[in-house]
């Protein structure tokens, strides 16, 4: 049988480097225009008539490839360009320059086609219907993604089981705790069987137990062959869930490799990822 066809049909091919690339990013840049405020009274009033702008390079030449079934962590300080990258990969933002493909298409040009195959979860920005029982959010989202009744039921039941949210299904979303809400949101993100999932700070503000449940769930999804792109400040999350990490700083990728490699590069003896990352930041600031 044709081997390329095989690997396309099944994203769970044994050797990672042989799998199909799911996300390809080449020399990606993204600039923003920021309006400058005056400092003094006169300045504030005069810039009302003649505004001045500054250009910020949120992303400044980023390249990477992610293959099917990979699980990649994306770390960086606030404002390093994490969210901008995710927004571009989801088709929300258009690159200033560079090439981006997700599952073979440019996300911005084929926004809805891309949307059907990806999942996005933004921490602390729920997509639950606030005043209604959680079940209603599942129903509506199942319809939005055109799932057949059988697929919908099967997926929902699997996720409810995996995230242990069966008891919450009939509770209005506004009455849930943050941990419960996050689990429901996670289930909604995976409801339509996305091939790639982008998670932006999914565990932000959660306690240890809630985090553990979420990590276990993500590990299981990884085994099922879902490609995971996880942006997080929580290095424990990354260590447990991902097998590759990219470090972004001031719009550039400083490091791209396994956790072990990252430790090796920064001196080996450091066991804690956090220290490694901190050292990297310091070097980047100096350089």
């Amino acid at each position, binding site marked *: 049988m044709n081997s390329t066809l095989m690997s396309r049909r099944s994203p769970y091919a044994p050797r990672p480097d042989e799998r199909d690339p799911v996300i390809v990013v080449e020399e990606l840049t993204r600039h923003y225009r920021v309006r400058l*405020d005056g400092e003094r*009274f006169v300045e*504030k*009033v005069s*810039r*009302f*008539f003649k*505004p001045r702008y500054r250009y910020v390079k949120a992303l400044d030449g980023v390249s990477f490839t992610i293959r099917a079934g990979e699980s990649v962590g994306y770390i960086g300080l606030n404002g390093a360009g994490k969210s901008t990258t995710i927004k571009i990969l989801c088709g929300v933002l258009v690159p200033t320059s560079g090439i981006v493909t997700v599952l073979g298409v440019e996300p911005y040009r084929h926004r809805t086609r891309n949307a059907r195959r990806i999942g996005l979860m933004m921490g602390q920005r729920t997509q639950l219907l606030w005043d209604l029982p959680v079940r209603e959010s599942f129903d509506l989202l199942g319809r939005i993604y055109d799932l057949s009744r059988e697929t919908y039921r099967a997926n929902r039941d699997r996720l409810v089981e995996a995230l242990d949210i069966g008891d919450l299904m009939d509770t209005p979303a506004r009455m849930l705790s943050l941990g419960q809400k996050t689990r429901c949101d996670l289930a909604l993100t995976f409801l339509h069987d996305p091939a790639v999932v982008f998670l932006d700070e999914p565990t932000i503000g959660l306690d240890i137990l809630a985090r553990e449940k979420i990590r276990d769930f993500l590990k299981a999804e990884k085994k099922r062959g879902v490609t995971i792109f996880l942006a997080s400040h929580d290095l424990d999350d990354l260590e447990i869930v991902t097998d590759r990490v990219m470090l972004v700083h001031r719009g550039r990728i400083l490091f791209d490799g396994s956790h072990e490699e990252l430790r090796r590069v920064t001196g080996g003896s450091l066991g804690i990822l956090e220290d490694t990352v901190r050292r990297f930041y310091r070097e980047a600031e100096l350089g």
Partner: protein
Amino acid sequence: MKYLAYTRCEFLRGFRYRANYCATLGGALIMVVIQWSLWTAVYRNTGVIAGISLGSMISYTMMGRVVSGFLSEPVALPAGKRIWSGEIVHDLVKPADLHFQLLFQNLGNALFKLVSTGLPLLTVLWLTGVLKVPRLPVLAVFVVSMLMGYVTVFSTSFLSAVVTFHTKSRVGIDHVYTVVELLSGMYFPLDFFPGWLRTVADFLPFKSIHYVPLGIWSGIIAPGAVASSLRHQLIWTMLMVVASRILWSGAVRSLTIQGG
């Protein structure tokens, strides 16, 4: 005075949004056109309505547009919303009195509207001969009256916000604000009202928002009646500020004792 810092800050904030300002000015011009056309059409077949000539009417309504931003319902007043969201706690830990802080903060916003929209409008209306600026003493009385109008409009919303806090209801004065607008004389002078409604409106504080200052400006309030109108404004202004203080300290007490 430390509260003036809030006024300054809020005044300057208005300068941040340029395109937004152009839209506001455009909206103000549109309202001038609508009002002018409406009253001209209304007076087409008659000379005097309810004792008011077209000239006085135009003077009243056009000046009404000039000060409408200054005397508008303070939507920037966050009291109601803040009380709802519990953010009020942030304000309680600051060493300033929230009631006065909001009064002066909103004054900054109102002044921005007056300077940025009202003044250009007044200039245009004056240059085109639609509005005539009255003599200096009348002008002075008008400014005093307008300031009392500002305190009234602020106090109306503030009182409503505090009352909704006490009653835990979601309906505030802003949900029935058209009634306040009508009774304040925003659309036309109270002289148009039928007798019983006039009696009601004369008693209530709302006429101090538009009718008294604009009546003084346009001469619709006869010079002999100006003193009593100002007295009405002064009494109601003081009453509303005192009522705000009492209900407000009640709200603060229930927040600090019962925790909201």
